[in-house]
């Protein structure tokens, strides 16, 4: 078991290494002077020279890469072109809205989607199953920002239940926090509900055909027990796997949703950076998002140990 966990942690390192390499090469393979890209259009020749110096552009490319990784490991993500502040500071300031939105979305989605998926599989082919399936195709098809604007026009402009935009930290009061994060969460949650409900339904369907479910029924257990203890328990691995993989989708969705609802999070930071071609910020956000993704999936790999005794005692 310890071997398994160590192995998973070690396997995550080359993945992160490749992400870093990819981000590094992306900049180097761009035609033109990387220093000029990193410094922005308004840089003075002295600033350019200073950046060239720190990148060591005359060194072999491997040396440059490892020096850059070394800087990253020390928390040096460079300086924003737009604001002139260290990127790491900018990111720190913008973390809270993003994390809040991601967490509320995951919690709401899982609470709604898992029961939906279970019922759809149990009542396969009925009206409720078709409704869940249609909902999940809709979730994959309607762009998040379209849902966002529909929400705004309905709940903010027509019904005036929620503010159009803005964010309050949870420290300022839970009620206010929830009131303002509600619409962005509803917006983003549909995609995630679609994803989780779908995998829950498919894995439940598969498992409901398994022999041990038949055994459970042959034991004369009530259907609720068969579904929850025997079927759903065995679905937990595919479901949390998809929650982990879906985290990349959440990050993409957060970028869009923040932009629709004007939340001062990492997504807004990224979009502003794109508009002003502030590459150091984009680069840092990619690295950070990928790191979070890798860590979450690592945690999920470790969670398998708790969920599946076949791994625990391997």
């Amino acid at each position, binding site marked *: 078991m310890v071997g398994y966990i160590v192995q998973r942690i070690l396997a995550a390192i*080359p*993945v*992160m*290494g*490749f*992400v870093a*390499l*990819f*981000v590094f090469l*992306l*900049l180097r393979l*761009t035609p033109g002077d990387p220093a000029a*890209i990193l410094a922005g259009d308004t840089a003075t020749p002295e600033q350019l020279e200073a950046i060239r110096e720190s990148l060591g552009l005359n060194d072999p490319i491997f040396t440059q890469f490892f020096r850059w990784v070394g800087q990253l490991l020390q928390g040096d993500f460079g300086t924003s072109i737009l604001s002139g502040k260290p990127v790491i500071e900018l990111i720190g300031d913008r973390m809270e809205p993003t994390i809040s939105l991601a967490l509320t979305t995951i919690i709401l989605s899982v609470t709604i989607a898992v029961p939906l998926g279970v019922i759809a599989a149990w009542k396969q082919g009925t009206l409720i199953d078709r409704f869940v399936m*249609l909902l999940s*195709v*809709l979730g*994959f*098809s*309607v*762009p*998040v*920002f*379209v849902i966002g*604007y*529909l929400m*705004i*026009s309905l709940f903010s*402009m027509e019904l005036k239940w929620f503010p159009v935009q803005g964010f309050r930290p949870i420290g300022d009061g839970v009620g206010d926090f929830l009131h303002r994060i509600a619409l962005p969460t509803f917006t983003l949650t549909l995609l995630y509900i679609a994803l989780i409900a*779908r*995998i829950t*339904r*498919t*894995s439940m*369907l*598969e498992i409901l055909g398994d022999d041990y479910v038949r055994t459970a029924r042959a034991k004369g257990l009530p259907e609720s027990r068969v579904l929850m203890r025997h079927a759903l328990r065995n679905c937990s691995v595919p479901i949390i796997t998809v929650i982990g*993989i879906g985290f*990349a*989708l959440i*990050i*993409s969705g957060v*970028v*869009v949703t923040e*932009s629709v609802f004007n939340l001062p999070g990492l997504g807004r930071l*990224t*979009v502003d*950076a*794109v*508009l002003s*071609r502030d*590459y150091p910020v*984009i*680069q840092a*956000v*990619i690295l950070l*998002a*990928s790191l979070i*993704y*890798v860590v979450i*999936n690592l945690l999920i790999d470790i969670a398998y140990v708790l969920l599946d005794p076949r791994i625990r005692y391997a």
Partner: protein
Amino acid sequence: MSDQTATIAPPARMSPLVRTREIVLSSPLVTVGTIILVLVVLSAIFAAWIVPHDPVRLTPSQRLKPPSETYWLGTDAFGRDLFSRIVYGGQISLVVGVAAAIVAVVAGLMLGLLAGYIRWIDAVLMRMVDGLMAIPSILLAIAIVSLWGASLWTVLVAITIPEVPRVVRLVRSLVLSAREEPYVEAAIAAGSPTFLIMRRHLVPNTVAPLIIQGTYICASAILTEAILSFLGAGINPETPSWGNIMAEGRIYFQINPGIVLWPGLVVSVVILSINLLGDAVRDALDPRMAKRGLER
């Protein structure tokens, strides 16, 4: 009882035409979706003959008009006809969707075959695939576009790259499981060269899943293009696309929500139709996969 005397079942193969008809008619939703898709594709191809107005001509006197007999869906902030822009916008979306699907499937098929067959390539390639999948696709696309500048080509590359790893994984897993099949081992025992085994026994197994995956990629690429344009990291607003029409309408949302909602409706319905068609194809081509649910 004797297997020697048992009758041999007659062939049960359907012509592709009959098959297509069955898929399209498999449910009313799919039928409606297919009709909508055909209409959208036709209108994008023949846009020049259909649109009532020039989609790029600025008419400052006609800014933000509500729908009327002249401007069916109203006008945008520069007085351009919204309907005409949406019809033209379909060209970009469809080109992006189809091109991304084809390129991603072909690239993924080749890389997946290599990974499924050659050990050291597999080790390296799968680490790369894991790395690529760790980068949220929108962020990756944003980075590419912001570095290389926005053009149809960069947007296409930016949208296709994140799709490739999924195809590689799919093909690889299909190849690995097919390699265990006794009929593949029989071919090895019969002295068939690797290339022949791939072509004859492995690639045909990937066709149905790849067609299905291709439809999903097409839908996802159209979605990504719309998001990129919406975030301002897409194709130059000179060329109308569904995403940048919406992006331009954002600040006027409270005055004329139609600029955002009409293209939003079109893009949603088109993606929905492609996804429904993809599900129908999946149910028809590969019942086993339908049960398992294709990784997407």
